[in-house]
């Protein structure tokens, strides 16, 4: 119970902190809407008017991924720059329980992108929000955000080991959008991308949301998404413990 409280309070705290950054807020407000507008016009140009809702959802999931990628990837580095990393690591809890709320908070922030693209599509382009499985869509969105937050923990733990983590984060945005089938169906990609797509939780999360939107078996995709994310959480937890011990031993916790 205490652990759950820690996770919920921590997530709310970090979500509030992110929402105090004018830069984060402005980017989160505008960029997903631009992406959604682009997707809508592209789908219209391709004569796929019946798939506009799918396009808006896809653009929203792209926004969630961007938020998790940049937020979680830089989670530990940001704490270090703010001078709060030592305090976090000194907390009488396992590091994974202290960092996980940060990465889930980036997913929660990203869910704005999903809401914004849907509302934008509804009010500006008159896209009817006729979800095939409305209740499943809400569940899928919540599970997807939590799952991506867990995946974010693995990113946070591994990125901190790399000197060029920023470069990796910048590089990973479009490949994951592409390979996960957020807007482009995986079937049109070269066959070698299939195994890559299969191990990414983003693929299954995007698929679950698409199936809840246009019809299809939502729950198997969502279960796989959650399963892979739990595995990422476990790996991230091990990596984080290793990084923390190494940094304490070498006295480099506060060093960039």
């Amino acid at each position, binding site marked *: 119970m205490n652990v759950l409280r820690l996770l919920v309070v921590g997530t709310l705290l970090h979500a509030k902190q992110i929402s105090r950054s004018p830069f984060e807020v402005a980017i989160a407000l505008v960029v997903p809407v631009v992406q959604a507008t682009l997707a809508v016009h592209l789908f219209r140009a391709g004569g796929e008017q019946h798939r506009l809702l799918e396009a808006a959802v896809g653009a929203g999931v792209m926004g969630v991924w961007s938020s998790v990628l940049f937020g979680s990837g830089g989670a530990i580095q940001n704490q270090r720059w703010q001078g709060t990393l030592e305090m976090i690591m000194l907390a009488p809890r396992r590091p994974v329980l202290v960092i996980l709320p940060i990465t889930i908070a980036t997913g929660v922030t990203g869910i704005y992108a999903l809401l914004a693209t849907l509302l934008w599509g509804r009010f500006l382009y008159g896209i009817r929000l006729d979800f095939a499985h409305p209740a499943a869509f809400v569940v899928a969105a919540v599970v997807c955000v939590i799952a991506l937050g867990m995946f974010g923990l693995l990113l946070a733990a591994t990125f901190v080991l790399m000197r060029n983590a920023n470069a990796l984060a910048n590089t990973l945005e479009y490949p994951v959008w592409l390979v996960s089938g957020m807007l482009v169906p995986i079937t049109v*990609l070269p066959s070698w991308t299939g195994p890559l797509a299969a191990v990414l939780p983003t693929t299954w999360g995007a698929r679950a949301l698409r199936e809840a939107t246009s019809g299809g078996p939502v729950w198997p995709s969502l279960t796989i998404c959650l399963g892979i994310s739990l595995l990422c959480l476990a790996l991230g937890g091990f990596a984080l413990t290793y990084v923390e011990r190494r940094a304490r031993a070498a006295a480099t916790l506060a060093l960039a």
Partner: protein
Amino acid sequence: MKTLRLMTVGGAIAYRALFNWTTPGMFVGTLLVGPLFQLLFFAYLGRQLQVADDRFYIVGNAVLTASLACVFGGTMAVANERRFGTLGHVLLSPRSRTAIFWGRVIPYAGNGLLIAVVTLAVGALLLGLRIPLGALPGLFLAMAAGSLACGFFGLTLGALGLRFRDVWVVSNVSVALLLLLTGVNVPAANLPGWMVTVGHFLPITHAAEAARRLAAGDGMAAAAPALGQELLVGAGYAVAAVALLKIFEVESRRRASLDAL
């Protein structure tokens, strides 16, 4: 001659200073691999939706990839001086600030050109696009014009940084808008009229059009008007940047807010 030296040597030193934190890994990851995946993303999306052929997406996105380095570079040329507390020293210089800041844009434009060339080459190889050999010099010119226009566009945004606190929001949003408004990913015929009109005043729009004509084998004569328009847009932003820099410099001195962040 002295002004030319100031522009080239000053620009090169400032470029090195502002990029002192980078490493080959960061450069390749952020400026070469990322834009290549952007090209692939839109090329596959275009294929799937059958909005336009591969040439449309590969050539258009290759030209657009220059914008990342050029817009952010141009913005950094002014905004980072303020952030690092060195803007006052630059403005105390007895030399022309116009020459100093225009000189800053040139290395970033060169950087953008390199990115565009690499992205076009790799994208065309990966997706099997054949470009007539005779079109290559013209394509180089179109990409150079697009990069230069983007650099001056970034400098204009950077000048706004003398007045507004968080200019990076403007830069990030502008780069996202270039994806939509330049007609690189959605053909102009499928965009609302006002978006097309706005696109005409943005960098990349005309350079991408010129590059597509050249890649289609239409020849330099067909591409020249669009190329001229791109240069005109670039020149417009160069003038706008200098005017804004001048206005905000005077205003900052008057209000003693030059180094206020």
